[in-house]
């Protein structure tokens, strides 16, 4: 962005450094002077929360890696050693395991916010696609991390998920053998998962840099979806956005701490405290909760190949949202029909999540199929058609006007993030 003040180094050292590497100005223009719409609500704090959580996961992960042994005979006991004998090892592990869950909580809220306010639309398509890539990387990283403790669920989740690739015609079997590094999930599988689980967070960090770069080129969207027009529409990132983000990071940490200190195993599965046993299949294999909606889509479809295709499509379709949505209006606040279909979509995803945790029999399968149909219809039927038929509400002329019109300038104060807004 141009037009906002640039960094003026004061100390002799910073003046010297700035002429050789203008890092001060990079930080200043990105995180201090960067103009941010004045009407952002608290849903916009989840980007900062995600950056914070990535940091937490990397720091705890690096320390856990110092104590973990990636070998089928020692992995389970080394994790228990962390819990029992490493100083504050229990804290590191519970923080990392629950941190992964809360990373996904934050990313789902972040994505839902983007969908509600049309943040994927022109000129933010690349920003959005980078976000979908980040989500995919998170899914892969989270899955591999779940395998590392080498409990029963770790082992069988690895078996079930890697076996999905066998659905690919002709080469499927060879791909699975190649992924495993053998003819069953075993030590080579665990070793490579560990290697990749350590690598991918840094790939995520790299894509996050691109994501933030794209954000700073296009500028932030806002609850009206109307681009900032004058300086009155924006405030400086620091202190306005930083203090707001910090406050919500604090609240987020309270919820996270509740889980870590009081119910650390609530989100886990008790079977993962049983060491992996290739000879004994658990009665009920379930993935971590954050994959359950996709798991329900997979199981709802009787053909394995079609199920796997639907599973992959359910995530990849997100990348095409900017083009599937034909409406020129961004924010759902001005799109009454889209708003309703979107809330039903959110409910359908939560419903699929519940169904994914249940045994795939009878009514559950039928319900999962109905919700799967809605999931895809939302993208391929509802989104394109709504743009043609929906009667949208009039947009405010500017952000300032929307802030002023309500008497109290609500936009800047932000509504409490409970339930649906507007």
């Amino acid at each position, binding site marked *: 962005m141009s037009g906002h003040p640039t960094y003026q180094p004061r100390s002799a050292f910073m003046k010297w450094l700035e002429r050789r590497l203008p890092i001060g100005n990079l930080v200043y223009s990105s995180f201090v002077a960067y103009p941010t719409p004045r009407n952002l609500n608290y849903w916009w704090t989840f980007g900062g929360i995600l950056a914070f959580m990535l940091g937490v996961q990397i720091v705890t992960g690096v320390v856990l890696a110092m104590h973990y042994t990636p070998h089928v005979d020692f992995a389970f006991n080394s994790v228990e050693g962390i819990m029992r004998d490493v100083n504050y090892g229990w*804290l590191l592990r519970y923080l990392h395991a629950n941190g992964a869950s809360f990373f996904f909580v934050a990313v789902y809220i972040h994505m839902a916010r983007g969908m509600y306010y049309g943040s994927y639309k022109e000129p933010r398509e690349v920003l959005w696609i980078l976000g979908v890539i980040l989500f995919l990387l998170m899914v892969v990283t989270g899955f591999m991390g779940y395998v590392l403790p080498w409990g029963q669920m770790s082992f069988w989740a690895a078996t079930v998920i890697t076996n999905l690739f066998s659905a690919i015609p002709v080469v499927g079997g060879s791909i699975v053998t190649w992924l495993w590094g053998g003819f069953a999930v075993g030590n080579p599988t665990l070793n490579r998962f560990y290697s990749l689980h350590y690598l991918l967070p840094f790939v995520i960090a790299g894509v996050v840099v691109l994501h933030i770069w794209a954000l700073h080129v296009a500028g932030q969207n806002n609850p009206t979806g109307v681009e900032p027009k004058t300086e009155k529409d*924006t405030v400086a990132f620091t202190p306005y956005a930083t203090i707001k983000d*910090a*406050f919500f990071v604090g609240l987020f940490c309270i919820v996270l701490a509740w889980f870590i*200190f009081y*119910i650390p195993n609530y989100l886990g599965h008790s079977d993962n405290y049983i060491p992996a046993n290739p000879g004994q299949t658990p009665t009920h294999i379930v993935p971590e909760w954050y994959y359950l909606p996709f798991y329900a889509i997979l199981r709802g479809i009787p053909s394995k190949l079609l199920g796997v295709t639907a599973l992959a499509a359910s995530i990849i379709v997100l990348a095409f949202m900017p083009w599937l949505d034909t409406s020129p209006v961004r924010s759902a606040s001005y799109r009454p029909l889209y708003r309703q279909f979107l809330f039903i979509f959110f409910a359908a995803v939560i419903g699929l999540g519940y169904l994914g945790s*249940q045994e795939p029999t009878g009514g559950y399968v039928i*319900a999962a199929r109905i919700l799967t149909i809605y999931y895809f219809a939302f993208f391929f039927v509802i989104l394109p058609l709504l743009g043609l038929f929906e009667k949208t509400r009039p947009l405010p002329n500017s952000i300032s006007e929307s802030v002023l019109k309500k008497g109290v300038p609500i936009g800047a104060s932000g509504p409490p993030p409970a339930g649906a807004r507007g």
Partner: protein
Amino acid sequence: MNRHHTRAIAFALAGLLCGFGTAVSAQEADAPPRLHWSFSGPFGIYDQAQLQRGFKIYREVCSSCHSLKLLSFRNLADPGGPGFTEAQAAAIAATFQVTDGPNDQGQMFQRPGKIADYFPPPFPNDQAARAALGGKLPPDMSTLAKARSYEWGFPWFILDAFTMYQEDGPDYIHGILNGYTDPTPGFVLPPGGQYNKYFPGHAIGMPKPLSDGQVEYTDGTPTTVDQYGRDVAAFLMWAAEPTLDARKRLGFQVMVFLIVFSALLYFTKKRVWHAVLHDPDLEKPRAA
């Protein structure tokens, strides 16, 4: 339609799902009763006397079949545990025979346990255990209290996040120890199985391990199977989660800090935004 309609649809959808839930899932085993545990809730910690009683049961009854491989004798003297002194833990260790070696002659040998040793397993390997116990392998008990649970379904599991229910493992263990009843009419017990109303599938391999008065208590605690179940389940919870006391203590400190810190951030935020909110025509504010 307005927002209320949308919410109504969402709730209807959720209700529909629950309907499916209750209609389809027939509970295989009864849910064990939820007991009050000294270590439940935000300030709950282990009861030392109970852990000592539970250890006595483990030692006199369970340990003849079940290993406790991840625990060491020194753990008995750890803070937040049963509260034995180091001397007591060493004395307990000395009553166990531990395989060590090889010695200078290349032989493995037996010696009395030391405080740094891990609890020796009752059988040299899984195959030996199966051979001695009619093909059944008793699970290791180190993580058992976290490795067992039961289904209690929607919406209770949501509620449990708020009530901090994490004692499903001990409840299940207590339930199993008290769940040996006569089979329901028409239930065909497979050979070698015992009927247990809380065991998934009802046919458990383990014969009823405890009966009233079997283990002697010196502190006047009733010697009933119900009490034994509570004590040994508490001991096994400690074995699976020996850092629970430290976790809850640190948790309270972290919570107090985070709440105060977040409140300060909130008031700082209010102060920072005050000018923007109350003078919308204000020139674009500059960074401080």
